[in-house]
């Protein structure tokens, strides 16, 4: 376990393309939908939350917004009366980590051994927040500089490898890092016995892939990530059933939805790649409308327009 001791001043980590304005959340309801096995999907505002429950407690993937923390805890209570033990962050964007601090405080860690370390009894205070090390780097700041998020929201347990494994509630959980996709710190969470994957924003049913170029996201990393997820799924028949997928935004899904999404991303990447090879400028590529046939499906988000997506694809292919 790595525990962060960096000083910080509260700030806001917001990627402008994602999530509603937190001020609009007063009337937001948190809906609970069974995904499969021990895993549920919580739908509210911001990114979807996956909840895995059992005798050991609750583990959640992402936390939406701080303003929704009480409602999220109430939703978790509907499916588990055990303590919240773990929070996993799929990436650093505000609509996925905004509730970290209050939700962590509401939970408790089973401490002892090297989990307690030098902290002693204090180690049991709050749930653990697990994330890839690059998430922590984007949420924190060196001593003396202002951090974009409060210290209480920071990951308490980071990993630098391709994967972190966990056994919780009687099932193996793989937290798999997919590099340079949506950001440089993306992880998906695979609940192996329940056969559910929480993808973070590597997959949504609502928008074009949001590629945070400034944070290391790339179109080819994104496609590689989606293909990695498809490697993990097993369907019952054709493209359906079997592994359930909780997307970063949008509806509960399975392989068929992800296959369609992969098809869309790959086709648009190929079109832009062809235009780049022909020496077309960004403005020429935008004018050619390489997303035209998919815009009625994915192009209605004013915070992540088709032109913004095309620009991100173009820039990362030009690198």
């Amino acid at each position, binding site marked *: 376990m790595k525990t962060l001791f960096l000083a910080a001043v509260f700030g806001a980590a917001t990627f402008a393309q994602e999530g509603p304005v937190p001020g609009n959340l007063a009337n937001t309801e948190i*809906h609970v*939908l069974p995904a499969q096995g021990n895993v549920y*999907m919580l*739908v509210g505002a911001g990114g979807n939350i996956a909840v895995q429950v059992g005798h050991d407690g609750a583990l959640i993937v992402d936390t939406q917004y701080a303003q929704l923390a009480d409602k999220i805890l109430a939703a978790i209570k509907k499916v588990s009366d055990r303590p919240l033990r773990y929070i996993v962050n799929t990436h650093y964007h505000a609509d996925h980590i905004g509730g970290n601090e209050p939700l962590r405080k509401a939970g408790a860690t089973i401490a002892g051994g090297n989990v307690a370390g030098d902290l002693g009894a204090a180690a049991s205070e709050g749930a653990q927040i697990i994330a890839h090390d690059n998430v922590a780097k984007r949420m924190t700041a060196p001593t003396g500089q202002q951090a974009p998020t409060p210290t209480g929201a920071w990951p308490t347990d980071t990993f630098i490898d391709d994967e972190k494994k966990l056994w919780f509630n009687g099932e193996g959980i793989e937290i798999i890092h997919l590099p340079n996709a949506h950001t440089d710190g993306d992880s998906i969470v695979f609940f192996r016995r329940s056969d559910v994957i929480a993808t973070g924003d590597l997959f949504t*049913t609502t928008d074009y892939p949001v590629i945070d170029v400034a944070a290391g996201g790339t179109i080819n990393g994104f*496609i*590689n990530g989606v*293909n990695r997820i*498809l490697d993990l799924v097993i369907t019952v*028949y*054709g*493209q*359906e059933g079997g592994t*359930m997928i909780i997307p970063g935004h*949008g*509806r*509960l*899904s*399975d*392989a*068929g*939805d992800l*296959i*369609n999404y*992969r*098809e869309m991303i*790959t*086709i648009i990447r*190929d*079109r832009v790649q*062809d235009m780049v090879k022909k020496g077309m400028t960004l403005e020429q590529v935008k004018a050619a409308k*390489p997303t*035209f*046939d*998919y*815009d*009625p*499906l994915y192009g209605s988000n004013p915070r992540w327009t088709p032109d913004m997506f095309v620009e991100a694809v173009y820039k990362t292919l030009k690198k």
Partner: protein
Amino acid sequence: MLASAQVNLSGVWSSRLDEDFPDRLAGPELGDYGGLPINAADRLRATSWNASLITLPEYQCRVHPSDYAASFADIRMWEDRDRDTQELVAIHIHHFAWATERTIWMDGRPHPPDYALHTAMGFSTGKWDGDILTVTTTHLKEGWARRNGVARSDRATVTEHFIRHGDDLTWVIVVNDPVYFTEPLFRSRDYVFNATGQIAPYPCESVTEIIRPKGQIPHYLPNTNPFLKEYQVNHGIPEQAAMGGAETMYPEYKQKIATMPKPGGAK
């Protein structure tokens, strides 16, 4: 009050393939989008479609969606009834093709929320309009309006009418797709009751047919599909008509076609 069946649709029904036959058994020709109310976005999806796509393992056993499955082979229908009240709870349909099964809920339950899973069969509820069973289906996965690349989106709503005339069954399908259609798409299919009918299993196993780089998706870049002219030339169909659109669904469009120049090289 639970719904009571006005007619009994249970049993095996054999498909009559005479209507739209070339579209159904032989399969539609590449570049034939006539008679479909598609918009420009769907037309680009269709012209970008490469038939090699269905050689990918994850596409080989892709089932026909419920609004398209009626075009193929026999079906078995059966009822679920509450044992005590004998009220009709649900009607089920098993399609021979890809062994798909769907449930039409007749007990008045609501459709799921928009964040629930979409499937190839969708979520269906039914009601009786006299002796006609009318079914509303939502929560469909993306499917196809024609199996040559013309997409039907996952936001479509489908209305079906099952009309029994003695041993004949007419199945009318109306597809409303706010994403890719400018008008509703209508289809009708005919079936005959088959008192001795049996439906065989339909297993499907995906295999690697072609070694490709990981993640490669066969498709045509815009304006590069080499097969779009074949249908037009072989049948003397003007390009505008072959490319479809709501106008091409109506009988009077034949008169307009007669005034258009035939494609170069038409036989």
